[in-house]
C-alpha cells in the first residue's frame, strides 16, 4: 500500500514537473529552459525542501524508468525513416562521427585526469556524449556511476546546445550536414533539438548521428577508456 502511494506520488511529481517544464520551454525557448534540465531541478527542489530521500522516489518512479528500453528501441524509427540521408552522406558522416566521438571522449578523459577528478568521475565523464538512456547502461560496464553519468550527459547537452553553434562558427564548420552531425554527436538529445532549430537537414542528421555515435561508443568504450586511463596515469 505504502509502495503504491510512493509510485503514484513519484510518477505524478515527475509527470507534473516535466509537463510544466515543457510549458516554460515553449514560452521561453532556450537551452537553459530545456525541459530535462528544468524538470530535474524542479523534482530536486520538491524532494530537498521537505528533506525526502532519493531512494524511495526512484523506486516509485520505476514505471517511468522501465519505459527507457522501449523508448530507445523507438529511436530506430527516425533512423529508419531517414535512411536515405544516411546513405547519401555515408562517407563524410561516418568519418566525422568516428573521429569526433573518439576526440571528445579522449579530450574529456584527458582533461578530467589533468584537473584531478576522481577516477569514477573521469570514467563517467568519458561517455558524456552518449545519449542518456544508453550512457546509463554503459556506465557500469566502464566503471562509471549511472546517476552521475546521466547528469553529465544532460549538462553536456545544455552546454553544447548553448555554445555549440558559436563553437562551430569559430571552428569554421559551415556545411549544414557537418553542423547537424557535430551537434548530434557531441550534444545528443538537447543538441539535436538545437540542430533542428537551425534547419530540417541539421535536425535529421543530428538525430541519426546521436543514435549511431551511441552504438559506436558503446562498442568501443569498455575497451578504450580503461586503456586510455592506463596510458594517462
Amino acid at each position, binding site marked *: 500500500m505504502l509502495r503504491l502511494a510512493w509510485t503514484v506520488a513519484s510518477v505524478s511529481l515527475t509527470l507534473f514537473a516535466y509537463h510544466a517544464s515543457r510549458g516554460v520551454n515553449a514560452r521561453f525557448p532556450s537551452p537553459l529552459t530545456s525541459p530535462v534540465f528544468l524538470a530535474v531541478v524542479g523534482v530536486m527542489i520538491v524532494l530537498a525542501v521537505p528533506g525526502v530521500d532519493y531512494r524511495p522516489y526512484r523506486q516509485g518512479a520505476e514505471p517511468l524508468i522501465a519505459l527507457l528500453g522501449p523508448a530507445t528501441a523507438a529511436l*530506430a524509427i527516425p533512423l529508419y525513416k531517414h535512411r536515405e540521408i544516411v546513405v547519401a552522406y555515408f562517407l563524410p558522416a561516418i568519418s566525422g562521427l568516428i573521429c569526433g*566521438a573518439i576526440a571528445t571522449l579522449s579530450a574529456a578523459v584527458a582533461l578530467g585526469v589533468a584537473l*584531478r577528478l576522481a577516477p569514477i568521475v573521469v570514467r563517467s565523464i568519458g561517455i558524456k556524449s552518449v545519449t542518456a*538512456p544508453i550512457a546509463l547502461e554503459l556506465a557500469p560496464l566502464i566503471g562509471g556511476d549511472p546517476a552521475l553519468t546521466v547528469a553529465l550527459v544532460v549538462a553536456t547537452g545544455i552546454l553544447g546546445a548553448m555554445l555549440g553553434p558559436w563553437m562551430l562558427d569559430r571552428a569554421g564548420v559551415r556545411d549544414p550536414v557537418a553542423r547537424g552531425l557535430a551537434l548530434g554527436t557531441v550534444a545528443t538529445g538537447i543538441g539535436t533539438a538545437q540542430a533542428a532549430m537551425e534547419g530540417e537537414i541539421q535536425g535529421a542528421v543530428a538525430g541519426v548521428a546521436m543514435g549511431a555515435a551511441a552504438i559506436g561508443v558503446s562498442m568501443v568504450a569498455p575497451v578504450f577508456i580503461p586503456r586510455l586511463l592506463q596510458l594517462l596515469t
Partner: protein
Amino acid sequence: MPPRKQPTVSELRGMPILRQVAATSAQVALLWFMSWAGHEIVTFIHLPLPGNVAGMLLTFAALSSGILPLRFVEQGASLLVRNLPLFFVPLAVGFMTQGSLLAAHGFAIVATLIGSAFVGFAVTGRVAQLVTGLQGKAATAIRSSHVETRLDRR
C-alpha cells in the same frame, strides 16, 4: 468485402480516443518486447553492449528486413521519442545525492565538459566537411570524364 488494412498514422488520428490509446499502447508494448529481446540476446551471448542498444539495432533490423512493418510501431514510437527526456528525469535526479562532488569539483567538471565539447564539435565538423569536399572533387572528376567520353563518341 475487401480485407481490412492496418490503420496508418493519419487514420489513427481520426479514430475514437479509446481505440487510439489502445493502439498506441499495443505499439509501445511491441517496442517493449523488442527491447526485452535485445536485453535477452546481450545477456545470453555475453556481449559488452548495452541491452537498450541491442533492442534498437534489433528494431532497425526488423524494420529493414520487412519483418516489422513501420505502421505497426510508428505511432507508439513517435510518442516515446517525443517524450524521451521524461524517462531519464528520475535518474538524473539521482545527482542530488552527489551535491558534495559538485561543490568540490564543479569548476573542473564544467571546464572538462566545455573543453571536450569544443574538441568534439571541431573534429566532427571539420572531418565531415573535409570528406564532403574530397567526395565532391571525386564526383566532379568522374562526371567530367563521362562527358569527355560522350563527346569522343560523337
